[in-house]
């Protein structure tokens, strides 16, 4: 008994399938795909609705337009490459050994599923599950399973749904297929037509020696294919794992909802493919091709790698709301970087912490309210310059308990921007200052404390600080930080002690 078992997956009208896979809004719409340069465009693929409406392969654009209700789209090699990668990725979940047997406008791959019975069950079960997985990924495929590579390949191209060829019944299963399915040259096909040979069954019935005597050694291969006995050296491909999806819009899209609708489907596909390899999405890059030839790029980086579609879509929505494309979008390419899924050891006595994924969405919303650079954690810079800090992204990182500070410290409340004040000096000490609204009588002044730096650069500073206790006219007392900029001679009320 042969231990070889192959499952051939055939996706017909692949240019049309690749374009429609991510376009849920075109479900049920008759669509034909044109290839070639205008005005010599011809229909190369279509969906079932278009075929029913009367469209046919090889029609020119004018002929196709004459068929009412058929939407005409341009063939996209990028969309096909993305779809092919997605299909192979999906098939790789069933067998790592896959040979690509695509040709023309069809996409075909043959899986070596020998020995997978204990994993997935009978050949019928494997084929059914494989077809279900591909349907979920947006592909309409036919699958044939056979112990012979070519028998499976030929049968899948002709069958609908799932076909399983039992061992020894290959010739019978292929008998009704046309000889054209062997990919013959025009001359040979004409010869067979003259002989009255139309099906593989009729070809298989011819005597081998006489056939070879008339048509050469190639005839032996054709007869072997027709009988389902041809041998084939399986050449498994090394599928490149690239998380990339592409969608080309037939008309430029302006509405955010439409973009997110398509984007959601693309995120779904990327997340599904990453999850299939026990990976998550560490970052998702969006590349928008805009009308007018411009490009808009955004990168979504969740705090932790994730495959949560709703979460990624929310981040995308918030990011695009804050940074919308400046023109209508012609095409969208989505690429993702895979990362390992987050593993967190929870503990009963661990301190209460925000959930990282929720914090991501919250921070995106906070940035939409307050501004991009105004939300995060402050980081002090290694400088003597007053108020030297920068904002960095806030991340929830489990921290260990640390020892407390040295004691209770006075805090400053900064005035941003600092208020320019008029100062009356007594000697060299501030005596009265006025901020434009109120007058402050200085009761005690401590200083000056001078600091300067970066004299060699543009961002230099030279300041004189005074800690001042003052009293307002209504009797209220304040303690504040007055700073004299020695560069321009302006006094500023920088902060209040609180």
């Amino acid at each position: 008994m042969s231990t070889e078992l192959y499952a051939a997956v055939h996706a017909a009208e692949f240019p049309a399938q690749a374009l429609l896979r991510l376009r849920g809004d075109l479900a049920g719409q008759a669509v034909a795909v044109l290839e070639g340069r205008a005005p010599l465009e011809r229909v190369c693929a279509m969906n079932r609705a278009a075929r029913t409406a009367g469209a046919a392969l090889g029609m020119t654009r004018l002929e196709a337009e004459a068929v009412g209700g058929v939407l005409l789209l341009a063939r996209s090699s990028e969309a096909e490459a993305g779809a092919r990668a997605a299909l192979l990725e999906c098939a790789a979940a069933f067998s790592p050994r896959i040979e690509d047997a695509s040709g023309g406008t069809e996409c075909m791959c043959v899986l070596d599923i020998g020995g997978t019975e204990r994993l997935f069950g009978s050949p019928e079960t494997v084929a059914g599950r494989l077809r279900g997985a591909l349907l979920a990924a947006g592909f309409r495929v036919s699958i044939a399973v056979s112990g012979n590579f070519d028998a499976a390949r030929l049968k899948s191209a002709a069958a609908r749904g799932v076909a399983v060829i039992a061992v020894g019944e290959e010739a019978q299963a292929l008998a009704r297929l046309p000889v054209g399915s062997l990919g013959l040259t025009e001359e040979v096909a004409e010869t067979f037509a003259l002989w009255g040979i139309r099906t593989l069954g009729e070809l298989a019935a011819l005597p081998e020696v006489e056939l070879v005597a008339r048509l050469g050694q190639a005839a032996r291969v054709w007869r072997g294919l027709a009988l389902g006995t041809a041998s084939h050296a399986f050449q498994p491909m090394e599928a490149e794992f690239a998380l990339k999806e592409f969608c080309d819009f037939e008309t430029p899209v302006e509405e955010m909802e439409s973009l997110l609708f398509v984007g959601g489907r693309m995120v779904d596909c990327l997340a599904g493919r990453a999850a299939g390899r026990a990976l998550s999405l560490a970052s998702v890059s969006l590349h928008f091709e805009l009308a007018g030839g411009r490009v808009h790029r955004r990168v979504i980086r969740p705090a932790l790698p994730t495959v949560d579609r709703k979460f990624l879509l929310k981040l995308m929505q918030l990011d695009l709301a804050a940074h919308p494309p400046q023109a209508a979008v012609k095409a969208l390419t989505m690429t993702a970087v895979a990362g390992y899924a987050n593993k967190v050891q929870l503990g009963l006595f661990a301190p209460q912490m925000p959930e990282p994924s929720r914090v991501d969405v919250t921070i995106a919303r906070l940035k939409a309210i307050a501004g991009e650079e105004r939300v995060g954690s402050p980081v002090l810079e290694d400088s003597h310059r007053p108020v030297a800090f920068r904002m960095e992204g806030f991340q929830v990182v489990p921290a260990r308990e640390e020892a407390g500070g040295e004691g209770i410290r006075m805090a400053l409340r900064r005035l941003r921007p600092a208020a320019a004040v008029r100062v009356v000096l007594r000697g060299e000490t501030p005596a009265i200052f006025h901020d434009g609204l109120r007058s402050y009588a200085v009761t005690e002044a401590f200083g000056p404390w001078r600091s300067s730096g970066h004299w060699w650069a543009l961002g230099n500073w030279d300041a004189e600080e005074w800690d001042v206790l003052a009293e307002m006219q209504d009797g209220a007392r304040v303690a504040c930080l007055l700073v004299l900029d020695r560069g321009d001679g302006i006094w500023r009320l920088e902060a209040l002690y609180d």
Partner: protein
Amino acid sequence: MTNASALRREIEHALEHRFPAALTPAQKTIHETYATGIAAVDALLEGGLPVGAISEVTGPECSGRTSLALSLVAGRTHGGQVCAWVDAEDALDPESAAACGVSLRQLLWVRCRRVAGTGKVTAKARMGHVDQALRATDLLLAAGGFAAIVLDLGGTAVEDARRIPLATWFRFRQAADRARSCVVVLGRASYAQSSAAAVLKCAPLRAQTAGGTVLRGFEYSVARERQRFVPGAAGGRKPPASTWNAPWSATGAWVRGERG
């Protein structure tokens, strides 16, 4: 069994179909608190500020409100938790925060900004930054997980902050309870009214100097104006008003080796 106990049991049995345990005091609920790290204030509050509730720290400028709030946040961040500072006036000084002991990595700082307007300043434009702060606080409470959220309205005019609807404070109270966050509102006056579980009123006392040439620190006083969850008060009596305030002091970051 004494006559009083027997009588109480008899009455309770008679009424139990209508009022279960009619004469038995209600069970004491222990409310978790976060210590502020200032011994005098913690003693005044009998533990610290309540968790899952709104606390208001009020007072004029230079009354120690910010130092008190930073001290609370420093305690939480050193305990490994994360906190948020919603800064309506963009007044937080990160250097001061670090000097107070706040682990800045574990602090989410939301810097609201005044809405720039041209011509006549409308009430809506004047309230823009307060509105941002309220929306940010709402989001942080909904996200959960922050041990303390400080809503800094310390520089906001009282008449502006009083425009905040009471329904907002009520919502914050409910959200704080769900999120188990300690919401601290800094302001010139008390705004949350009945939604606040604790209200502290701060006032400056005097400045401390070193040799008359260096400002060394300040002495403040803090008074407890309201405390809904007094740990020892359930079923007992309200403590006397004379124990409702306490002095405390803070020193400058340049003073070494001092403890508050």
